[in-house]
Each structure stands twice: as C-alpha cells, then as structure tokens.
C-alpha cells in the first residue's frame, strides 16, 4: 500500500460549531489511495512544540484530489491546526492504517445479503463515517434502508453533518446530551430497536459509547467494526506507542487498526 508525505494546501476552512472545524486540503496522492477508516498524521505547526504529528481520520475524500479533516479543538495541537488559514501548507503523512471492510469482500463494500448496515458515530467519531457513508453510497446500496445514528453534546455539533448523511439518502437518527435535537441521551438507547435487522455495525466515537455499542452487538450477535483513537508518535508502526488491549495481547492501533473487529479487543479493561 502506498503512503505519502506531502505538503498540502488548505483549500477551505469551515467552522461547523464553536470548537469544531473542517479543513479541506489538496492531497492528491492520499486522496487517490485512501479507504474509509484510514487516517493521516498531520504536522500542526512547523515548529518543535508541539513536536509530534496528530492523527486524524480521513473525513471525506474527493476524486479531484481533495481530502477533508474534521476535528474539535481540545488541546494545543488542534488549536494550532484550527488557526491555519486558507492557502497555508500543512505537512501530511498518509493514508495510514487499515480501513473499514465490507462483509468479507475487502474494501469493495459488497454485502452478502440485502440487510441494512448501521453507522454509529459519536462526537468527532462521526468524521470517518461520512467517508464510509459516501463509499457505501457509491457502491450502489439502497442507503435509505441503512441506519445512521449520530450523537454529540449539542445540536450545533450535529446539524451540518447530519444533513450530509441525509443528502446521501440515509435515514439519520440523532441523540444529544442536552436534548437540543433528537433523542436526549445516548446513542446506544436507539440501537435496541434496530439491531435485530442489521447485518453489520460500524462505529467510531467515545470509548464508553463504543463499549456499549459493542456489548449490544455481541448480545445480538451482529458483527461490529470499531475505529479507535489513541496517542501515536509515528502512525507507521515504528514507535510502538499506540497499543491497546486485545483479546490475545496488546495490539497496535496504527498498523493493525485503527479499525478492528470488536471481538478482537478487550473491552472489560480500562
């Protein structure tokens, strides 16, 4: 698989909510080869503090060589990235890691039957799921039969993203912590009704949310792929810093993930 280190121009910078930003960059090599679920390592500044790149999942990927990243400002790195302007060059390495997979048919997203799939995103975990949704849509699925469940703290963080899933034909259910839109409470509350009909669940979001989703999927015996977030120094399998607990010992999120079959991971720890 090809990887690239590229200086990429920022083409647009959208503020989706108070602290949520979307950058679109010209990244032709990465855009041409990326699969949904893969990520890039971003040098947020040219200086030495912060030193390390930050991993971001690829949020959207366009045929004309653009990619988008979605992120919330949570620390020094994301704050610096949010301050970058249109026209700035940002150094990216990617695409890295594996991606979400269809049901045994590689990244073609062909499924063994016509049962729906369910995409569950929480907070910035929504980012890679839009890329996945677009890819599924391109594969010719009847997306109106699938499910998209999105959760966040408030309506502000959800509205523009929910519309983009809706525009692809997906029925979207929302949940917010404050009840400002959709269900007041957590995503997994919405899942019980859906799960018996579903062939495959894809999820990315806060660890506690994914843990609950995985528990429900395991009870209903529905396959579930999770995309994990963790600290990384290199993203390429060299630093070995990004381990999490797997069923058969430690696994490396950057190379063996960030997407895992939920059954591979040890959810009772942490």
């Amino acid at each position: 698989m090809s990887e690239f280190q590229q200086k990429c121009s920022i083409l647009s910078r959208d503020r989706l909510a108070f602290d949520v930003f979307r950058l679109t960059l010209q990244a032709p090599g990465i855009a041409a080869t990326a699969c949904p679920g893969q990520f890039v390592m971003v040098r947020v500044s040219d200086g030495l503090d912060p030193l390390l790149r930050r991993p971001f999942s690829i949020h959207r990927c366009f045929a004309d060589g653009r990619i988008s990243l979605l992120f919330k400002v949570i620390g020094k790195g994301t704050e610096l990235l949010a301050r970058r302007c249109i026209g700035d060059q940002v150094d990216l390495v990617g695409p890295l890691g594996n991606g979400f997979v269809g049901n045994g048919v590689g990244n073609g997203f062909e499924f063994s039957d016509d049962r729906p799939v369910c995409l569950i995103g929480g907070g910035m975990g929504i980012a890679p799921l839009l890329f996945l949704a677009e890819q599924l849509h391109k594969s010719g699925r009847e997306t109106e039969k699938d499910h998209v469940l999105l959760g966040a703290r408030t309506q502000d963080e959800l509205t523009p993203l929910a519309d983009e899933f809706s525009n692809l034909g997906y029925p979207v259910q929302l949940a917010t912590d404050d009840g400002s839109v959709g269900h007041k409470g957590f995503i997994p509350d919405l899942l019980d009704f859906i799960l018996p009909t579903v062939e495959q669940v894809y999820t990315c979001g806060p660890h506690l949310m994914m843990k609950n989703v995985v528990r429900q999927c395991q009870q209903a015996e529905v396959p579930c792929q999770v995309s994990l977030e963790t600290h990384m120094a290199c993203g390429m399998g060299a630093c070995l810093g990004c381990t999490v607990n797997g069923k058969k010992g430690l696994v490396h999120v950057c190379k063996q993930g960030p997407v895992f079959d939920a059954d591979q991971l040890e959810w009772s720890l942490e």
Partner: protein
Amino acid sequence: MKELRMESAGNTGRGSTPDLGVQIGPLVLRNPVMTASGTFGYAREFENLVDLAQLGAIIVKGISLHPKPGNPPPRIVETACGMLNAIGLENVGVDRFISGKMPYLYKLSSPVVVNILGDSVEEYSEIARRLDRVEGVAALEVNISCPNVKKGGVAFGTVPEMAARVTEAVRGGSRLPLIVKLSPNVTDIVLMARAVADAGADAVSLINTLIGMAIDPISRSPRLANVIGGLSGPAIKPVALRMVWQVAQAISLPVIGIGGITTANDALEFLLAGASAVQVGTANFYDPSAAGNIVQGITAYLQEQGEDRLVDIVGTLQTGID
C-alpha cells in the same frame, strides 16, 4: 559476512561533491547519518516514505533473546519539544528477527546495525553469537542503557564494571564491529565510555533517553502506565551535545552522537563536537524525511565551507579554551 556495498571512506572529494564517507571502527559508511534504534522499526515501515538507500546505516529496533511484549499502555506522552516513552523494548526476539526481518533488511543497500539488549550478561553474549554469522548484519550496537527495563538492566548502563562485563561478553561472542550505546543517566559519562572502550568496544554511541516523567493533575496520575519513561527529542539536544563533546575529548574511539537531531545544523553541531557520525531518532516519527534532508544539508554545508571531506570537520570545534 556480506560484503559492504558502499564507497570507500578513503576517497578524496573531487569536483563539487564532497566525500561524506566515515569509518566507525571497522564499519565503513558512505555518509554519517544513521537512524536510531527504536525509531525506525525494522526499516520496512518507512519504505514507502523514505529512500532507504540514502541512509548511512539503519539501526533496527532493539532485539532481545526472547520476544518481549512491552509495557502496558499508555506508553508515550508528548512533552515540550520532546516525548517520553515507556515502550518496554517490545520486539520479536532474535530468532524471529533473523528469520522474519533480516531477509528484507539484507536486500537494502545501506548497512544494517542490530541493536541488542539482554537481562543478563549471558543473554547479551548469546544474542551476539546468534547474529554473528547472519548475512547482512554489518555491526552490533549494544544497548546497556534503556531506562524501561526492570530486571536490574539499568546497572549495565550506570556501573562501569557492569558495562565492561557486557562489552567483553559481546566481544567474545562476535566478530562484528561493536558499538556500545551509553546512558546519560550517570554522574560521569566519561567513566562509562572509558570502561567500554577498555573492554573492547569499537565505538560508542550516546546518548540514550533521559529518565523523566509526566503527570496529569486532573486525575492525579502519571501519564505513562510505567510511571517513568525515557525523554527524547529536541529537548535533550544540549545535554547530548555536551556529553558527546566530553567523551570525544576523553577517548580515542569513534563517537556517534544521538539526541534531538532534526536538521543538518543539529547534526553538524555533533560532528564539530567530535562525533564521527550521528543518529536521527525521534525526528523519524514526526518527519520521516529528516534523515535524508540531513544528508543533503551536510553536503551543502561542506560545499559552502569549501570542504572536500566530511572527516576533516569532525572535532573541529573552536572553544577558545585549552
């Protein structure tokens, strides 16, 4: 042993391209820029991003006698201009390294240096013995200095007599060029360097990471599961530079400088201080092109300075003091 495929270090520079060749004991390198152990995996991780042929040498992840799973997460944390790690020497073990990693490494045109580590003097000796006749291994770097092992390993890097015993044991088990990597976590680095030099090392490399820690005030817990870890990156460069200078003054063996080297200027500081070569470590994580850029930058510097040979600038620091 595989014949080293590289230019002679003795070439004199002709025309506009200076000769970057250096000699580290019996090990001949076409340029002085290596990748530091633990920061470059087994090289294959970088093959899509880095022209591996432009590296002076590749030093692979530290290898132990038996596979090691490493420490529990979290294992890394970023600090100001640096990072702390407590990976715990995760590696595949010497036998799987030889069967699974060396066939790829053997094909590379850059020499491959294998970093080795043990829990006992006997383990060091045994690993060295197993690697001795493996085709494609150009040299050994003996890690006596990792802060992330619990079994008394720290004594190997902080007690001169123990460092000498490990060096002698590896020397006895191997004909390969022998580099001993020193720990900065000592009172007098020169004592350590002299001890391993007297015990048969062909060169010393320094420094390994400085022991440090970081704390999360909200959870009132350490940021690393191992509590303490090794600090690396640009934050440690002045310490490394000082130690390289002190050691280069004190011993006649070649010295390899390591510690926060990110740019050609960083590398040149170490070379001027007396290092015959340098290793690029943490920079590989955040800038995979760093080592290649440093080779180019050193070439440009020599051209600007009108120097034909890199070796002519090694140790030419002008301190103004006798």
